[in-house]
């Protein structure tokens, strides 16, 4: 089973989590742990360009992060989702709940 990697970097006022690999029930724990560590505390961006597959486990992590951020007025965006990640997000019927930017350069100041 292929694992995922989640790298955390600071970029201006944003904390960026870069995810590579599949997000499923076996792999989402690391993403969840790192997301929960930052969500609602800082402005957070999650780069999903390198995501090879994404199940409901990944959507749940993203939704929790969005709601954590909203609860305290912090910002949360998804960056450059891969095709499979985009489709997974759109399958919810509420893609507009996940603010998205095409690249890290497009992160708001």
């Amino acid at each position, binding site marked *: 089973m292929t694992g995922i990697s989640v790298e955390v970097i600071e970029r201006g006022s944003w904390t960026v989590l870069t995810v590579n690999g599949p997000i499923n029930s076996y792999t989402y724990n690391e993403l969840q742990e790192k997301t929960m560590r930052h969500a609602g505390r800082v402005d957070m961006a999650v780069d999903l360009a390198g995501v090879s597959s994404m199940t409901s486990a990944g959507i749940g992590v993203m*939704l929790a992060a969005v709601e954590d951020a909203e609860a305290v007025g912090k910002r949360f965006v998804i960056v450059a989702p891969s095709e499979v990640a985009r489709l997974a997000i759109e399958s919810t019927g509420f893609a507009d709940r996940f603010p998205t930017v095409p690249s890290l350069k497009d992160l708001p100041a």
Partner: protein
Amino acid sequence: MGLTLFTYLAALVATLAAIAVKSRAAGLGAFRLAALASVAFAVLLATGYLLAADYRPAAVLLLRAADAAAIMSYVAFMRLAFLYPGGRRHAVIDAFLFVASAALLGFMVFTDLYVIEVRRFGIEYLRFEGRYHALVTVAGAAVGVGAAIVFAIRGFISRNRVFRQHLLVMALGVMGSVVWGYVFAVLGPNINLERLFPLSATNILPSVLAAAYVFSSTRVFQVRGVARGLGVWTVIAIPFSAPLGLVTGVAFLFRVASPVSAIAVSALAFLAFARWAESFARGRLGSSRDESAREDLESEIAHIDLSAGRDTVLGQLSAIMGEAIGCSWFATLSEDDSGGLRRVFPDDDTLISPAGSPALEALAAVERRAILKSDVEADESLAEHRSALLAFFEALGAEAVVLAKEGRRVVGVFAFGPKRSGADYNALDYGTFDAVHGKLFVVAYYARHVARESLLETVEQEIGLADQIVRSVQERIDPIVHPGVSVSFRCEAPRGLGGDLFDSVRISEHRWFFVVGDVSGKGLNASMSMIILKSMIRTLLREEKDFVKLVARTNSFIKERLPRGTFFSGLFGFLALDKGSIYFINCGIPAMFFRSPGLDAVIEAQGEGRMLGFVKNIEPYLKTRKLILPPGSRVLISTDGIVEAESIRGERYGKERLVRILGENKDRTAAETVDAVVRSAGAFAGGKLDDDITVVAIDYAGRPSGRTAARPAGRPEAGPKEKVQ
């Protein structure tokens, strides 16, 4: 004159308060009469005062009628003092009071014996009193004082603490009205404060609001709660009333504004200040603190280690609730195999309520999550079950209970003893019970389905325990057994614990409600959310007859009650075998395939869907669809665990393979087809599926009567707003 504005406002407030009362308590009619007479008093007095400058004949009639209305309101309060909470009406007394009131009205309004004339010059108000003015005034006040005394005496001798408090509140309210009226109407003019006379009719507020509170409340209040309420009121009132009074007073002082513009300015001032004051008060005076405490309590319950064994789990819960609520003891009752309620913590295994007992029937019938003993004593909506519920409370010695119910089945009860402080349970406690109900529900299920600790030694820890709960819950469905249909399903989780769900509930002989889907998250958390959701859907199904609203309320429950980030992707269906149709709402189910024997083709039927748990109000997004089933047709529904299954090369199983399996198994049974799908996906994934899976197959044979469907079918269409029943 500006002060009359406050009298009209008082009349408006009293009217709204009286209208808002929804009660079946004894004396409600007397209260409404008292409120009506009080409001009439305020309106007549304010209007008469305004007319007294230029229209004296009309003014004197109105002011005489106003005072008659005031006395009648005290008479009605006196009647209420004898009727509330459990007095009986006597037609003779009512008839006598009606005749006496009519005579009083005629005497005061149409003779000069009470008031001869009134005049007003600016703010100077003159009243020429008749021969019996003092006598009537004193007699009227005496009736009011008498009502207050009767309320007080009955309050002090009442054994019921709720009614005691209610009666004393009304005693204070009526007495407050009498004193207030005396100060502004009698004392004020005698000490050169006649300009305050228009405020005399605002005295209706204490009595009407006190009675409105009594008829709207079934719980005692605590001094702390009252102090907090007064604090909030003060914070709102000071910044609001200061500019309001200033603007109104200045406007009238310089006569630059009409009453209408003064009211408009006042309203704007209210809107501007009230919003700010509310948020200010919420942040500093407690309500947000209460919410935070409730969230902490929820979190504590959620973090109880369910693998520790039942006695330990319930012991931990007892300690948490004892600390949070301040109860002297805590007990857990659980449904036993016979359907009765047994005490499982402390574990004396006492049978508290046998199956079918009045108490158990009452608990099942009451549509509440928590019940305070004071509710049972004072709330007329519980009158039907009062004796059974009180017997239940007495048997336990409890002051409050929280119920875990699945539909009408009582799975468990959490009982709370008297508070260590001696205080009564109040609305704040009720709010806490309501807030943590979802978490307590999980523990109730745990207590119901996990055997005693001593019997668990052979069971593996966490997975085994939780799996035991999950399986028992998943297996509890109303099987769809009907000559016109064959239904088969498989619900599996790769780790033994999962959030996938299939449930069916029989609605009538030919109709079933069903739900299939996936609660997000994995393992124990997802399982617990699934258990709660399944139970909640069954409960909502009993309450809500509108299909769309049922789904919308389920969405609200997920959004508000389940852990952050939880969502549900699935499908809610309503199988109408007598109509040969399925009505469904797609909430993000990825695959629903329909195979018609006539077309010999497979059609993807689910259409667009919105998952639950993403937005607060999902109703605008929901669409009921209808799928007409010809005899011999098959519907296959699958959660994303199948469609998203990955091979070792990273390929998706996809819908195409599902369609192929459906075609290859067209001559096999529903159960064989479901097995084939699960086998195929498992083999594709190298024998190890990553995600929970649920597959449901529905084979429709035809209507019960043997007639075939009237319309050729297959393609789903947007359906009307369907009722569940």
